[in-house]
């Protein structure tokens, strides 16, 4: 391919993806609170309203349920809406449309309709926004058959997964970690997609597999570098999609390393790591495990406002280091 690769921020990469999509396909349009002249709570839509007009970059009232209902209806009737929540936490207000309508229609109408809906959820903690604006609720939606749920960890994947989501005939939920919006990384120009349902090995290693999502991928990679200096060779897998999950990549990795750590920001119990762990325990990788599986997930608490407590409520690099050392050194 004849494309140039530049450094873009994660937010710029998403904006570019939406612009490309709108240029390519007139059915694509954006909906969300303050995404028009304000440019979005996290400035992801930016000046798109000036390029594409208010008919395609639509500010919605402060009613997530109403907005989501419009988006589902538009998708069912042939449009390609991209609906932005200001904070992923507010998905709670729109659950009826997401879970009972978008996820069910294809099934309940015998395949007569599909819901090609894309929803974007600024997610996660670390911004001092406290308990109602800092959650990681991807596992809620990952529990719903009929939805696809992705968590891009890099600018490249943020663009590629958004374009892949638009190609998908079914509703795709994109969780974007707020702390990643400013992260820069190489992004090819033009149109490309990143496959949904395919994990990416970010670092190859032989001693321990670290399966991570979203911002935890970067924490895992940082930990892996430290571990390498100690002679522990960690493999870091960016899960990228939590539903449908890429079992093959994780199973193959665990078979190679015999040890597994899952790192995710969502609440530990009943979370993404629980699914990865159980999936491995059920798979033929079980016979290759040489140590217990470790889950590093969010604390069993609402995200605190106090910055130090906020940090302590989600896995950090030292937690990953300790777990990997314990596993490899036979302490756990």
């Amino acid at each position, binding site marked *: 391919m004849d494309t140039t690769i530049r450094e873009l921020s994660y937010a710029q990469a998403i904006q570019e993806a939406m612009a490309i999509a709108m240029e390519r396909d007139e059915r694509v349009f954006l909906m969300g609170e303050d995404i028009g002249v304000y440019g979005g709570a996290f400035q992801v839509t930016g000046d798109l309203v000036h390029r594409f007009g208010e008919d395609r970059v639509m500010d919605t009232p402060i009613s997530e349920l109403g907005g989501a209902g419009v988006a589902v209806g538009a998708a069912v009737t042939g449009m390609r809406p991209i609906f932005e929540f200001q904070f992923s936490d507010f998905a709670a207000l729109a659950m009826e449309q997401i879970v009972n309508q978008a996820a069910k229609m294809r099934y309940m109408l015998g395949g007569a309709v599909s819901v090609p809906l894309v929803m974007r959820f600024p997610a996660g903690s670390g911004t001092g926004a406290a308990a109602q604006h800092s959650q990681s609720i991807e596992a809620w939606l990952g529990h719903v058959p009929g939805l696809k749920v992705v968590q891009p960890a890099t600018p490249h994947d943020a663009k590629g997964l958004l374009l892949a989501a638009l190609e998908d005939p079914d509703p795709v939920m994109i969780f974007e970690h707020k702390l990643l919006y400013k992260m820069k990384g190489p992004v090819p120009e033009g149109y490309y997609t990143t496959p949904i349902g395919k994990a990416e090995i970010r670092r190859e290693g032989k001693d321990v597999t670290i399966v991570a999502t979203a911002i935890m991928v970067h924490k895992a990679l940082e930990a892996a570098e430290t571990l390498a200096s100690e002679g522990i060779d960690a493999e870091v897998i960016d899960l990228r999609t939590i539903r449908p999950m890429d079992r093959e990549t994780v199973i193959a990795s665990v078979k190679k390393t015999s040890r597994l750590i899952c790192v995710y920001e969502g609440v530990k119990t009943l979370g993404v790591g629980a699914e990865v762990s159980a999936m491995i325990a059920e798979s033929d990788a*079980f*016979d*290759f*495990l*040489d140590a217990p599986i470790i889950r590093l997930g969010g604390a069993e608490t609402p995200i605190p406002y106090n910055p130090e407590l906020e940090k302590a409520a989600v896995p950090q690099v030292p937690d990953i280091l300790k777990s990997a050392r314990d596993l490899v050194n*036979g*302490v756990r």
Partner: protein
Amino acid sequence: MPVEVILPKVDMDMETGRISRWYAKDGDAVTKGQLLFEIETDKAAMEVDAPASGTLRDISAAEGATVPVGQAVAWIFADGEEYTPTGKSDATPEATPKAAPAEMESAPHPYPLPAGGEREASASPPPSSPRSRGEDAGRQMRGNDEAPRATPLARRLAVKAGLQLADISGSGPKGRITRRDVEANIAVSSPMPAVKESLASTADAPLHAVWLRQGNDPSAMPLVLIHGFGADLNSWRPLFAGIQVDSPVLAVDLPGHGSSTRDIPENLDAVAEQVERTLSAHQIGPFVLVGHSFGGAVAATITDRGNADARALALISTAGLGPEINRAFLEGFVGARSEASLMPWLKQLVVDDSLLSKPFVNATLAQSADEGLRAAQKVIVDSYFADGTQTFDIRPALASLRIPVRVIFGAGDRIIPAAHVAGLPGEIATHIFAATGHMPQLERREQVLRIIQELARATA
């Protein structure tokens, strides 16, 4: 708390052992490490040492009794510790009278008593399903009803290798068996690798030899190393570990050892001839020859024959200077099949047994699992050390040598007595290291290396 004396597992597939002899009796003061009793299995006799110091009490298995592995056969009470009857082992419900709960409750007891409170020695073999009560012993020996902790991977590897988890000691948390533990056991119990098939089977073929070091100065006179009985060329590696040497170093596997032929030549001359052929195959010019123990006798013979250009000779704990040799060691060493039965013999080699590293023990064990190798070494014992006697004499050879010779011994050698150096020709230098056993190259590594290097430099 009193320390339990249990019947140890000395063999992989051993389930019971017969106590053939007690060396201490009830009430005796014993010290840790002291010989307590001897057991017999169908394969071996094994001595068991006291696990602690104190007073031996409550011997529950008389001489001749067959006892399940892991069962307590006696207790040792520490000095000053009040003696309370421990009750005999709990493995014999039908052989013991009804429990006497009232009595048990009235007497405070250091250990929970089993259903049978009797503590008279029972000569009848108790039925199976033993359980040791001491926590440490329980962890170590694992009663039959306690499944070993093992990771899924360890279990799979053990099944594949035909190993019983119960025979593997786990290094993980709570004694969990991991891949590392199984692999260590595979290394121990599997026969030598495929090299075996390529072994030279005729006496004419050169012996297996490896350049351990290329040497910093390739023009320096090479060192040729000949290991002792039961070892192989790898046994020299620790001597040079992490050390830069000027001389290239070639180590040879003797017949019946390492990867050399399993055919044992009839006499030292024939062994020497094989080594000579090996050296010329490696195009060795003038060299410094170093031999340990049996290898020392081979080295002296080579030097005496004069076919190879040995310019100096270092003999470490050499054989061939006198008739005595530790016969029990030779037989025990060759017969040992498990770490438990091998370790006591390996400990005889050195004064400080902390020098017996795990790799060393594992390597030795791996050899003991090789039937062909063991058979060959038995032939050596039967011919060269027949009836516990060194049947060869290198003194005449040494007397006629006109090259520098150094003889190195450990004063505490329990295999070949250091006293054998007496009466050597005056021009032969002898070095006797105090508090050193049969392995000066391991126990006095720096000094031995220095002696060898001095010899090499003086000769060059």
